[in-house]
């Protein structure tokens, strides 16, 4: 589904991704862990298409297409979803209006007709109930005045509504209480299937305890320095990153 080949990226002359190779196949859950400043969030932004990065070499292939030339909205329409570490607040735009606009934009790009309002609202209701969200969640301005936990839940709510092929979760567990973490992790685990893939960026074991990744990679200085299975998470938890850096 996603293949990153020999990718090197810099910002303002500083190298931040160095000759990175990573393969994410359909149905897999991949965890990326690493110390602060190792380039994990940068990688997620580059895959999603954020401006400001200079690709020096390499390719990002998503479903047989090099996506480096695509705008972020085109990448989203082709099935890439980034759940933000710090979701933005947009006063003046209701959560449901935003989501409907987003879904219709993706549908238009893929040649599908616009969503039926009733069906959209019914699905919103079902998904929001699953995540334990209050009804008012939809009518409130997007993330405006939301608590940290509510913002993260909203990211997962959008993900479940948009049904992407590749979900990139950038520290979706940071700042969450135990109950919220469980709800979010269950939402993610429930969505994960043989039809999609997950790239989970995190610092902590607790999220991965719920999601159980198929592969774990340790990231440092913009590249993967160690790969393994779930057992690598436990090693990290007991010994820390210094064992690998």
């Amino acid at each position, binding site marked *: 589904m996603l293949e990153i080949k020999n990718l090197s990226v810099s910002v303002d002359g500083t190298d931040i991704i160095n000759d990175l190779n990573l393969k994410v196949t359909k149905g897999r859950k991949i965890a990326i862990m690493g110390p602060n400043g190792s380039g994990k969030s940068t990688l997620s932004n580059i895959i*999603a298409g954020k401006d400001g990065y200079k690709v020096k070499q390499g390719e990002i292939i998503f479903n047989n297409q090099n996506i480096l030339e695509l705008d972020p909205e085109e990448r989203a329409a082709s099935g890439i979803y980034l759940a933000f570490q710090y979701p933005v607040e947009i006063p*003046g735009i209701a959560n449901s209006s935003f989501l409907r606009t987003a879904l219709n934009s993706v549908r238009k790009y893929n040649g599908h007709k616009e969503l039926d309002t009733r069906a959209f609202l019914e699905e919103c209701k079902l998904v929001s109930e699953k995540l334990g969200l209050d009804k008012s969640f939809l009518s409130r301005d997007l993330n405006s005045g939301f608590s940290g936990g509510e913002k993260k839940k909203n990211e997962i709510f959008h993900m479940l509504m948009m049904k992407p092929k590749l979900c990139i979760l950038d520290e979706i567990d940071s700042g969450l209480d135990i109950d919220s973490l469980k709800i979010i992790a269950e939402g993610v685990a429930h969505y994960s299937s043989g039809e999609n893939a997950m790239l989970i960026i995190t610092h902590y074991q607790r999220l991965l305890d719920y999601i159980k990744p198929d592969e774990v990679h340790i990231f440092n200085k913009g590249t993967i320095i160690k790969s393994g299975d779930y057992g690598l998470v436990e090693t990290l938890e007991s010994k820390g990153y210094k064992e690998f850096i």
Partner: protein
Amino acid sequence: MFLKEYINNIKTDNDFFKNKSWLNTESLIEHFEEKKIPSSASEEWKNFRTTELSQINWEIPKSNRENIINEEVKKIKNSIILRNGFFDSELSTFSDQDGINVNSIEAYLQKNPDFIKSLYNNPSKYAENRLSGLCDEKPTSLLSLNALLNNGIVVEIEAKKKISETINIVNASYSNKEDLLINPYIILICNDGSEVDIKEVYFNNNCWTNAFLEAYIEPSANLSFSRVQKSMNNSIKTASFNCHLKKDSKLNLKVYNRERSKEDIRIFLKEENACANVSGIVVSSAKEESDIFCKIVHEASLTNSDQKWRLLSAEKSKTSINGKIRVNKGAKKSNASFSSKSLILDKGASSFSKPELEILEDDVKCKHGAAFGEIDKNIVFFMQSRGIKKEDAIIMLVYAFINEISNTAKFFHDDVVKEVEKFFEKVNVNE
């Protein structure tokens, strides 16, 4: 007839104003000739170019018949139409309703001779009383010009009448040739305990519209007034809104201002518990200016005012607001606030906000704030990452920016949305 010729006629022909006997002609003409068209030397005009106004020898229309009306104007329901500044009773779809009377100033004065005391006759009526003690008449010279040029209409709401349907005052100023000077002059009287919603719209083509509105809100009356500048083809607008509020009365004023247009707003809270809420959206594109001067004077105790402005500057344009709050001696326990937010869409665009407080009384609450910003690139990326095109994301963010102001009245919101759509047809936001 051209402006210079017109002014010469005023000075030499004693019969020239036989139908405007209420005017203090000498004083007004002296005021206009001495002070001339305002320039950036006046604080109130420093953000709006007036050189063009001074250089052109403007032609004065003789009647409304020179004017071609567009189809949009004809479709407006419950309308009072001013064609090139002249009331057109045939074209107006407003029919006499219980509680509303529309008259020429002349006819109104015949019925209410005492009203002459309220009319604009004296250039010092709206002059700026500077803290230095100077009574500065320079900024208001255009009011004298307007009073000299047109007869005007009086719209009166009878006491205790609550008018359910919105009244549309339409200023349709059109010229086939350039350089026509149009002078709508409207007086609005809301008698005791009356309530009315009025929407005033402007259509301008090839002209300078110099509009002058005076509103008198009597005790316990309630006026909701919105002013929307619609089409603006090769035109300039300088509009003045002057409002006097008595005890327990309320004004809700909403303004949509655009490029090459200046609003000059003066509100006087004359008696206890009078209240004015003013909000507006100011947009500009190309290399043009869109400017607001808004002064609220608290003359009595327990008066309240609130100003909220959203300014949107694109390309190489400039938007500006000078929001002045004056609390006079005796206006104890008054409450006043001003806030503005400016959104700058392009590197060459700019915005200016000047909250100004003149507080001459203790025991009052006054606050002000101004914020400036650009579209947040991180928010745009967030929206793009959800599949929304960059240009659509920016447009959504602009609507979110102005919604707080426009959403409070549906009829105003609908007009503003249409106008902002047109704005985005010509402004490229995907740079």
